[in-house]
Every structure is written in C-alpha cells, then in structure tokens.
C-alpha cells in the first residue's frame, strides 16, 4: 500500500482562531476515507488544503509523495491534474454547456483531438448515468442531482487517481442521494480510485467509507472503520453515531452487506 496523501503536523489558523493544531493523517491508495466532524471543525478547510487551494499555517502536506507549495509551477500543475474534485454546489461553469464543462479540462491539456474529446465526454456521461442528450443543456437547466452527476463527470474527465468529494449528497433527496452513493461506489470499484469525502450524512458515510477520520478539538480525534470509531467514548462521537437516526443508517448498511 502506498499513501496518496500524507498530512504531517499540520496547523491552520484563521486570525486568532486555531482550526487545526498538529494534525496528522495518512490516506492510502484505494481506500475511501471519510472526514466527519461538527460544523466549523475544519473538514472542508482540510479538504481544500489537501488540494492546494489553501496554504496551511504550519506543517506539510504531501500528495502522491510530492510536497505541495514548492513554488514550481510546472510540477504543481501536473500534480493538480492527478486528482478530481467534486465541489459542494457542483461549481459548473455556468456559461458552458454540460458538454463543454466536461470537455474543458481535456481541451486545456491541448493534446487530445476533438473527436476523441467528444467520445470521452459521452463515455463520462454514461459513466455517471446521464443520457447523451443531456450534454447540450446549460447548468441552469439541470436539477440538483444532475448537477452533482455532471460535476462528478467533470472531476473524472482527467482520469484522476484521487477523487475528493465535498458533501457529495448534501441537498439531494434520500432516493437520489442513495443512487449517487451507489454510483460513486461502483466508480470507485471500477476505476480503483482513492476517494476522500467530507460528509454530514450518515447514510453516505455508511454506504461509502472504508475508513473514517473524526475531526474534533482541532485534531483527528479518532481514525478507523466505522465499527472502531463507535467504540470510542467521546461526547461528539456519541452524539454523531449513537443516536437513533445513526443506528438506523448503520443497521441498513449491515443488512446490505457493504463493507
């Protein structure tokens, strides 16, 4: 097993407020790591630091073994092309059609010819279970679930090894959210991706994560499988995992036989 992301003694400060202090985390290739934590515990901040959108105040993050923020533009660009990010609200380019959105990263690369781009976009659309005719819609014409799917197709268009998901199922109804979780799970299996996700939703957590990192008190409070985490005695974990709602979600996971 090689580690895809290594976070080494990371500290983050916004003004006078410390978000993370001396945080360590290692994410292995092929796993689905979920980051959970209360509001304001810095989950999304951590995710943004992993992909180099935010610079940590102290400490270092290594992506695929290479440090971020070396100042070498070429190296940084190549590193950025090895992961895909699904933003919470999709972040689709609203002036582009679905097709242009998915084709955008490939066109930016500038080596693949238009015919191949067309075929690849159609492939990505079918991978996220959308129809070819959806390619000509504008983002404003899409429903919430479709926006997430298109955003996922765009995140996958550079054939990333690492996929980062920020609240992948927030704002979707339970039915859609379940089918989206299934979709990500099957893509993870097919493509052998490493997935890092931030979520509040226990169904998503139970349906996807192979390991869970609980962020609280400015550090990783607990790390392990869901079953491991539930053994930890801490007020936040008790509240998050052990109420009725959580128990139901986890039971349905057991009956589905997901691991």
């Amino acid at each position, binding site marked *: 097993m090689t580690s895809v992301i290594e976070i080494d003694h990371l500290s983050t400060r916004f003004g006078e407020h410390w978000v993370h202090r001396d945080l360590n985390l290692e994410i292995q290739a092929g796993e689905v790591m979920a980051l959970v934590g209360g509001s304001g515990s810095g989950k999304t901040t951590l995710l943004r630091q992993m992909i180099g959108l935010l610079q940590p105040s102290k400490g270092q993050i290594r992506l695929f073994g290479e440090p971020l923020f070396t100042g070498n533009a070429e190296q940084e660009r190549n590193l950025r092309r090895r992961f895909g990010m699904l933003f919470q609200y999709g972040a689709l380019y*609203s002036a582009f059609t679905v097709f242009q959105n998915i084709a955008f990263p490939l066109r930016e690369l500038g*080596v*693949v*010819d238009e015919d191949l781009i067309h075929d690849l976009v159609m492939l990505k659309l079918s991978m996220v279970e959308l129809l070819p*005719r959806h390619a000509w819609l*504008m983002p*404003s014409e899409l429903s919430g679930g479709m926006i997430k799917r298109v955003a996922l197709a765009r995140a996958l268009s550079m054939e990333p090894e690492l996929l980062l998901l920020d609240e992948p199922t927030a704002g979707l109804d339970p039915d859609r959210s379940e089918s989206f979780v299934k979709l990500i799970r099957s893509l993870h299996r097919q493509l052998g991706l490493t997935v890092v996700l931030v979520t509040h939703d226990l169904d998503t957590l139970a349906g996807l994560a192979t390991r869970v990192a609980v962020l609280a008190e400015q550090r990783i409070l607990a790390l392990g499988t869901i079953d491991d985490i539930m053994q930890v005695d801490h007020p936040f974990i008790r509240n998050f995992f052990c109420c009725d709602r959580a128990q139901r979600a986890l039971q349905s996971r057991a009956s589905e036989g997901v691991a």
Partner: protein
Amino acid sequence: MSGASLALDTDAEGRRWLRLSGTWRLMALAPQFEALAGELDRQAAQPGIGWDLQGIESLDSVGAMLLWRVWQRRYPEILQLPDRLEPVFERLYAAGKTPEAGPEAPRPYEWVATVGRLAIGLWRHVSDFVALIGQLVLDIAHLARVPGEIPWRETSANLYKSGVRAMPVTALVGFLIGIVLSYLSALQLKNFGADIFIVNILGMGIIRELGPVLVAVLVAGRSGSALTAQLGVMRVTEEIDALATMGVSRSLRLIFPKVAALAVAMPLLVLWTSAIALMGGMVSAQFQLDISYGYFIDTLPKVVPVANLYIASLKGVAFGMLVALVACHFGLRVRPNTESLSSNTTASVVSSITVVILVDALFAIATRSIGMPI
C-alpha cells in the same frame, strides 16, 4: 511512471503481433499522443494483425478509447486481453449502445425565427419596462395613502451610497471638464477679443447641458451597474423570492427606494458638479484671460437666467429616475448564470446612457424657448 510503448513482432506461426506495454493513461499518453495515434492507425490498417494487451500495466478510459476508435468500435478478431482490463472496454461498449443525439440541427428559414425572436424580445423589454413604471406609480399611490410604509431606511441607505459617495468622483471629473472647456474656449475667444463671453459660454453650457448629462453618465456607470448587479445576484440567490414569501413587496422594498434615492440625489449632484465645473472654468479663465473671480461671479447671474437652474434640476430628477429604473429592469432579468449577469449589467449601463441622451434631446426641444438670455 513509464510511458506507453508498442512493439511489433512475429511469432512461431508467422502471425504478426502488435504488443502494447507500459502505462496507457492520459497523463502518460499526453506528450506522445499524436505520434502514438498515427502509429496505431497505420498498424490497424494491416490485415491479420494481432493485438496483445497483456503488457499494459495500467489503462484508463482515454487509452482505451484511443484503441477502441482505432479498432472502429468493436473488438479486433485477434486479441489478447487480460481479464483485469476487460471492464474498461466493457464501459466503452456500454456507452456506445445509447443512441446519440447531437445538438439540434439548424432549421431552414432560421433567420425568420431569429428576427421574430428579436422582435418578441424587444416587445418584452418594452412591456416589462412599462409594467415596472406602472408598479412604481401604484406603489407611490399606496405610500401616499399609507405613509407609515415608506421605506425610509432603504431610501436613505441608497441616497448615501449613490449620492454622497459619488460626490468626490463627480467633483473631480466636473472640475477637470470645466478647466478643459474654459481653456479651449478661451483660445478661440482671444482671437475675436470677445474674452468676457467666456462667462456666458461656461454658464449656459455647463449649467443647462453639460452638468446634468455628465452626472447622469457617471451615475449610470457607477450606481446603475451596481444596482443591476445587486438585484441580479439577489435573484440568483433567491433573496427576492424570499422577500416575496414573507409578504414584502419587492417593488416597494427594493425598487422604490432606489428610484426615490436617485431622484433626490441626482439634482443635488447636478448642482454640485456644475458648481465645481464652473469653479474649474473660473480658475482657467483667470489664468488664460485675466478675468477675475469677482467679475466672473458677478456676471454669471446676469447672463444665465435662473430658469436654467430649474431645467437642470428637472433633468437631474428625470435622469436619476431613468437610470434607476433601467438598472432595476435589467437587474430583474438576470438568470442564474455568470454570463447573464455580465450581459445584463453591460446592457443596463449602455441602455441607461442611451436613454439619458435621448431624453436630454427631448428636453432640449421642449425647453427651447425657456431660460435663454435676452
């Protein structure tokens, strides 16, 4: 990470094999993409060639799609495909099954439809604008009956933002324009020895015409664009819908304060800017023509009848309301995407400047016999 490579060899039975190996992933393929695609095409054209994919360490859909297209979207007859790579091609196969519809082909006589759409679009603009004005009139009637509902706070906030905050920039522009105008006129007047008429030229030109139009253009660029963008973003984030669901009239709370504030602020800004511009002209006249400040100030009321000041203020009120109305009209048309926001903001500024100049021409015709010096 090793790149993609291919080799050609012949086995014991005399069959030619194309053996692919290495990493067939997008980032590895990118530097050698064209060369590789050309080579594959050449090899595929030869009959009876075998494809050996067992040496491929890793394959993504770009690599697979490249091969799939060379194979003309079906498996070649002679193929050694390891099981681990099969799912990648299965995906391509599955994706190819859904029939594809391109964007709709342009119909014949499309231009007729285009003209029609333009006409309908223009009609919508006009009818929406009239509806906006009508709503505003209804709001004013309502507020006259229920004065307690006048949105004083919003109005005064708008007054501050688009009036008070605009004073430095209008003063600066007015002062400089005054200097330039006075300097250029002075050069001409000197030739005729008609130095003292500089007061007439500056007084009439700035007070009656230049002041109101200058301020209207500045305010359209400064506040008009801001109002459009503000309303547009409020529409995108559904804040306007939220207001409506709370039973708050959007025209009363959002549009009326903006129109009222500009209707009050503009005439004041016109007076302010004209005064500063005249000061600029006065300074320049003193340097160029030796006309003393005292003489300038003394002569000004004699050559510029006070009616001009009323016309200027009236223009200010009209221009202010127009700029605000046009800005609100375009702001409410913003659809939730970045393109729409930028095009509506542009359209708002361009239209309000155009409308202001048109209305200024109407004013010139309507007031042609008022306020002229005898």
